[in-house]
């Protein structure tokens, strides 16, 4: 088993390494004739302190890529690294600790525990670790997210935007190396989307947070530093300093060459 405690040398290496990296990552479902390839050998690195968007049509493997890189799912082949650590070598309890302490998640459907209040949902990763909540950090987060007045509410007493902001606070509460966001604005109206994306943008700029966000919204992708395009389980392009227009352009170009040639 690989431990999470790193030597100083490893720590330095980790500083130098990307926040997350995939090397030849493959993922197939089923066997024989029913085999479906979700990831066909992906090589990609997500830089530290950057906001990276992953885009691609449905079935392009972008969610699978995120799951495999975040330790939620096991790849069929290849390696996934988080801060230089090969997560393929981790057993279940080490992976659990990795998710708890070093990675944050934001999902499309908020995924809050319905029976817990906003405060309890936010501190859940800390509580699960049996640690004490850093109250300054907690207050800073809920202040920045504008949910200080909602802390005693249950998820079903909050709007979608509020719920997603609670989920953001939960993702950030353990000061993770990296946040994975899977279509975080998919269930939000445009105002709430803009607010949330603005917060994510600020956390990258002001706190140096690393974020990987799966999205199919060009407007959302324009908040990022870099967009990685996926199709048929492979990286097919990338774009730095995107704007909604440049993202759309790239998408239509990829869409034009996609189906007939790459679909085989």
């Amino acid at each position, binding site marked *: 088993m690989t431990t999470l405690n790193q030597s100083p040398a490893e720590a330095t290496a980790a500083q130098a390494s990307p926040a997350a990296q995939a090397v030849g990552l493959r993922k197939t479902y089923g066997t024989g004739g029913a085999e479906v390839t979700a990831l066909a050998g992906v090589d990609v690195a997500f830089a530290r302190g950057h906001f990276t968007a992953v885009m691609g049509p449905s079935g392009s493997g972008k969610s699978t890529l995120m*799951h495999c890189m975040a330790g939620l*799912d096991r790849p069929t082949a290849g390696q996934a690294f988080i801060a230089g650590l090969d997560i393929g070598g981790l057993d279940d309890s080490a992976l659990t600790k990795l*998710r*708890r302490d070093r990675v944050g998640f934001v999902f499309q459907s908020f995924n809050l525990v319905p029976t*817990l209040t906003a405060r309890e949902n936010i501190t*859940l*990763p800390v*509580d699960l670790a049996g640690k004490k909540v850093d109250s300054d950090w907690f207050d800073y987060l809920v202040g920045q997210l504008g949910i200080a007045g909602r802390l005693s509410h249950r998820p079903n007493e909050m709007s979608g935007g509020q719920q997603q902001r609670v989920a953001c606070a939960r993702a950030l509460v353990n000061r993770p190396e990296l946040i994975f966001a899977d279509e975080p604005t998919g269930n939000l109206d445009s105002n709430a989307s803009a607010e949330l994306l603005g917060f994510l943008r600020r956390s990258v700029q002001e706190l140096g947070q690393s974020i990987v966000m799966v999205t199919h919204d060009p407007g959302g992708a324009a908040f990022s530093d870099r967009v990685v395009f996926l199709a048929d389980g492979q990286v097919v392009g990338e774009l730095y300093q995107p704007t909604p227009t440049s993202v759309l352009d790239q998408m239509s170009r990829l869409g034009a060459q996609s189906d007939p040639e790459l679909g085989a």
Partner: protein
Amino acid sequence: MRNVTLKGILAHKLRLALTCLAIVIGVTFVSGTYVLTDTLHNTFYALVGTIFHKIDFQVRGAAQFPTTDAANAVRNPVPEALVDEIRRVPGVEAADGVADGYAQFVSRTGKPIATGAEPTIGESFDPDSRTSELHIVQGRPPTGLHDVVMDAGTAKSHHFSVGEQVGVILTGATQTFTITGIAQFGTADNLAGVTFAAFTLPEAQQAFDEVSELDHINVVTVPGANRAAVQQAIARELPHGVEVVTGQTVLDEQTSSINQDLSFFSTALLVFAFISLFVGGFTIFNTFSITVGQRTRELALLRVVGASRRQVFRSVLAEAAIVGAASSLVGTGLGVLAAIGLEALMSALGYTLPAGPIVFEPRTVIVAFAVGIGVTVISAVGPARRAVRTAPVAAITDRQDARDVSSRRRLISGAAVGLVGVVALAAGLALPKVGLVGLGAACIFTGTAILAPAVARPLSSVIGRPLARLGGVPGRLGRENSMRSPRRTA
């Protein structure tokens, strides 16, 4: 994690209550059985104690046959002449002979009086208060022919009073007696429903065909006498086939006889408790299986944000333990109430019991909680293990790792357990042995539970075929649904 567990339970109060029900009933049986039998044992023991506490020794015929129930043994008669000899033994203060047998009162409407299957006893009245277990509360002792003293229980329930005539069935025809007095045993109106008719000694000897003979002689020693020496001295006077035992021995024999009766009673009740707890365990297993299934997303989410497998496992078991503890608490309380109710019911039916406090032993609480929590937690282990296998990725996708026990393994193990059950049940009924019947029923139950999902697929396919033809799309969907996920029928 504790927070998640507690809030989860409180969010589903109705489900909680329903899940608890069977466990509550089971624990009620356990605690009720213990409270009732402890209470009965205690009151009977006190009762027997008040009857025999005066007697230091009893001289009686040896048992004619070896027996484990010394209190109800058939014994040789004791010659009446022995009484005077025993009275002359140094250290003996009083010795009085008793003849007893069958005597049944007849009610005003001409029906024999009896409480259930309780004995109806006739006995010679011992006027000596130093040895007698009876004391007159109204009227006077019997002095002449056709005088009888009636137990206060019968007098009360059938409204007889001193001076009235009453029919008594002895061996042979019904005879008419005059009630000269009404008597109690210590403070009890009767011996838990046993009716009691006391005659003069000569009349009793006549009636029970024991002329010049006695059933036993009760002996009281002078205060400060060396009892062992007195017992030896008495023993020297006795002819062959007659024995002298201490009052304590008689008391122990009576108590153990009562315990044998009660233990049959408590075994029967505990079998009910067992069945109920088995059903309860089954309900818990099903409820937790379903809730774990429904909570897949939530459990997976907990795994995503960093709950370890152990934390998820403990959370499910903790929920079970809380459910079990709550059920045990309610069940124990209900058990006490049930015991009080049953006792009142017995009194109403005429099994007059001496007043005694409800006995609530620590053992009752310990066993009730151990059984209630134990059954619940053990039943939840399976669902908890399934909860642990929830893949974190299930929080975001609908994909679930289907790792059901294969249908073939299910069929084989289910059939095997069921078969064992049928054999045990048949053997239990044939012998007959209550324990085996219970085991058999439990095995059949378990076997059916294991088999149900495996059988459901082909069965629902067969039943569903005509439905699909008749019902169109909804019918077909339903059929496919239960075929795809056969556990739903469980």
